[in-house]
């Protein structure tokens, strides 16, 4: 792979968080009964007129400005014509030669290096319906609830040079959209979708290689895996001296390969033309400035601030600011317990694993900043050990009650009293004669092992520092 260079451009489709569809008043709610959220406009019945949803338009402008784009002077919509059962009007209202915004960029950080990925264009369009195929019967079922849901298409320049960079770009884009509160970017529910263009060329070669278009990647991992697979496939073809054909390929998640969908010869001819049912749109400079000023602090800026203000490392700051809810949680906790590093460790460690396991965001749990602050305070004042804190953490998530309350009701407390610890330590020393010999021979690890044994016998309640001191004294004093 070293002799070859990978060139990737990504095309993301993002569902905007509006209540109603982009050109009619049907609800955008996910998971409604089939076809229950449709009307003459989104079903494309004769004689109806689309009217643009103001919020969808504003969200699109807001996003474009956050992506450092320029806003088109005169924004118009076009019809993209094709025949497919998921498209009741036989055309999709989209934007062709005058996209809402163009020439932007976002900054990503990958392998400790900053890089600008340019954004070619951002445009607003309507989603198509959903088809469910019934295998073997030659039938499909159509649900038009998704038809007319507002989508923002965000197209990058081919500035991405590895699958990992592609995933970092997508992650950054997702963070920005979530900070703006314009989309929930849920890849599983399809509110963030991604297609890719990828080609390879011998390193140093000026012109681009023949590209493949990849579709059907439904997670960050799938994007990375599909791009890696496709890059390798291209390099192998080139090594064998074979010609790469321009084609569209589908990622097969189960087989972990890309498969041919259509070749360039079959590529659609969409016969775009201006949408006569929608008037043009403009945003004046004053309005653009007003929206720019109202943009929230974005992930990269917040990351810089976290590093400067709280003395966090780049990595910690990156993990915390990737998710807006987590970054807010962090700052709320700091107001109550002034130790950024400790809070960061808990958020990116045990708390992150619980959230991962339960597939939930922190805002949707009963765990609050006050709980974390109190938990850290209990450790700080040595009322409980870190180990005990970890053990009661899931219960705080489950019940949303204060850590103090749990500690009290369970009768948990740290054992610091030397007398109370003496009998446990006696037992441990009696049962582990070999470790005592090891320690005397100079094996420091033996001490760590013995401390661990005491912790186990006390179910994590012993103060490890005190146990360590007592053990050391006993061992060095001739045991």
């Amino acid at each position, binding site marked *: 792979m070293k002799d070859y260079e990978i060139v990737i451009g990504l095309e993301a489709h993002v569902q905007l968080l*509006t*209540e*109603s569809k982009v050109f*009619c*008043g*049907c*609800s955008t709610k996910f998971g409604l*009964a*089939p*076809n*229950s*959220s*449709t*009307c*003459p406009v989104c*079903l494309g019945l004769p004689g109806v007129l689309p*009217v*643009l*949803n*103001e*919020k*969808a*338009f504003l969200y699109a402008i807001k996003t474009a400005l956050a992506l450092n784009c320029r806003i088109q002077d005169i924004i*118009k919509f076009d019809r993209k*014509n*094709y*025949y*497919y*059962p998921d498209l009741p009007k036989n055309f999709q209202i989209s934007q062709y030669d005058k996209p809402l915004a163009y020439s932007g960029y976002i900054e990503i950080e990958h392998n400790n290096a900053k890089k600008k990925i340019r954004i070619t264009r951002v445009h607003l369009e309507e989603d198509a319906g959903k088809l*469910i*195929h*019934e295998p073997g*019967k*030659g*039938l*499909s*079922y*159509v*649900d*038009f609830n998704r038809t007319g849901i507002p989508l923002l298409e965000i197209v990058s320049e081919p500035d991405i040079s590895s699958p990992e960079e592609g995933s970092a770009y997508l992650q950054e884009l997702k963070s920005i959209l979530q900070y703006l509160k314009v989309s929930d970017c849920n890849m599983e529910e399809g509110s963030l979708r991604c297609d890719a263009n990828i080609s390879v060329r011998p390193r140093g070669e000026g012109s681009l290689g023949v590209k493949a278009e990849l579709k059907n990647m439904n997670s960050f991992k799938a994007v990375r895996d599909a791009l890696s697979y496709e890059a390798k496939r291209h390099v192998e073809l080139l090594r064998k001296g074979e010609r790469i054909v321009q084609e569209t390929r589908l990622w097969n998640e189960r087989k972990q390969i890309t498969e041919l*969908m*259509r070749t360039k010869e079959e590529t659609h*001819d969409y*016969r775009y033309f*201006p949408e*006569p049912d*929608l*008037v*043009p*749109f*403009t945003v004046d400079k004053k309005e653009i400035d007003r929206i720019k000023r109202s943009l929230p602090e974005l992930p990269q800026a917040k990351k810089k601030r976290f590093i400067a203000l709280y003395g966090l490392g780049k990595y910690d700051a990156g993990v915390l600011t990737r998710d807006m809810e987590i970054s807010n949680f962090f700052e709320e906790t700091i107001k109550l317990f002034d130790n950024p590093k400790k809070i960061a460790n808990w958020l990116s460690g045990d708390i992150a694993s619980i959230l991962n396991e339960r597939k939930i965001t922190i805002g949707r749990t009963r765990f609050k900043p006050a709980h974390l602050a109190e938990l850290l305070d209990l450790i700080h004042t040595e009322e409980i050990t870190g180990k005990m804190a970890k053990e009661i953490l899931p219960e705080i998530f489950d019940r949303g009650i204060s850590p103090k309350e749990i500690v009290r009701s369970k009768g948990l407390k740290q054992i610091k009293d030397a007398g109370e610890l003496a009998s446990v330590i006696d037992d441990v020393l009696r049962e582990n004669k070999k470790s005592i010999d090891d320690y005397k021979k100079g094996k420091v690890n033996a001490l760590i092992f013995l401390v661990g044994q005491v912790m186990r016998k006390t179910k994590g309640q012993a103060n490890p520092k005190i146990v360590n001191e007592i053990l050391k004294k006993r061992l060095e004093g001739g045991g």
Partner: protein
Amino acid sequence: MPNKKTIDEKTVKHVAGLSRINLSGKEVKLYQRQLTGILGYINKLNELDTKDTLPTSHPLGNLKNVFRKDSVRKSLSAEDVLKNAPAKKDGFFKVPKIIE
């Protein structure tokens, strides 16, 4: 600059294909002649001097920024939605499977 554009048979077949229409050889010839005629007629517009005219995408020159508020309105009833459907099942439209 008037340009004489003709539609050849290949173009007729291409457009018919995009519209999922099967044409006989005779029909292709007929439409080729008719479409060329229509295009020639429209081409008259190219004789106009548009040097000082801005491109227009919409006939309502002064109308712009027409929005609706983002509020949910009642959708059609499930019954009405499927009323004209030739085939349906469990609230879905039923169609022949199309593999792209």
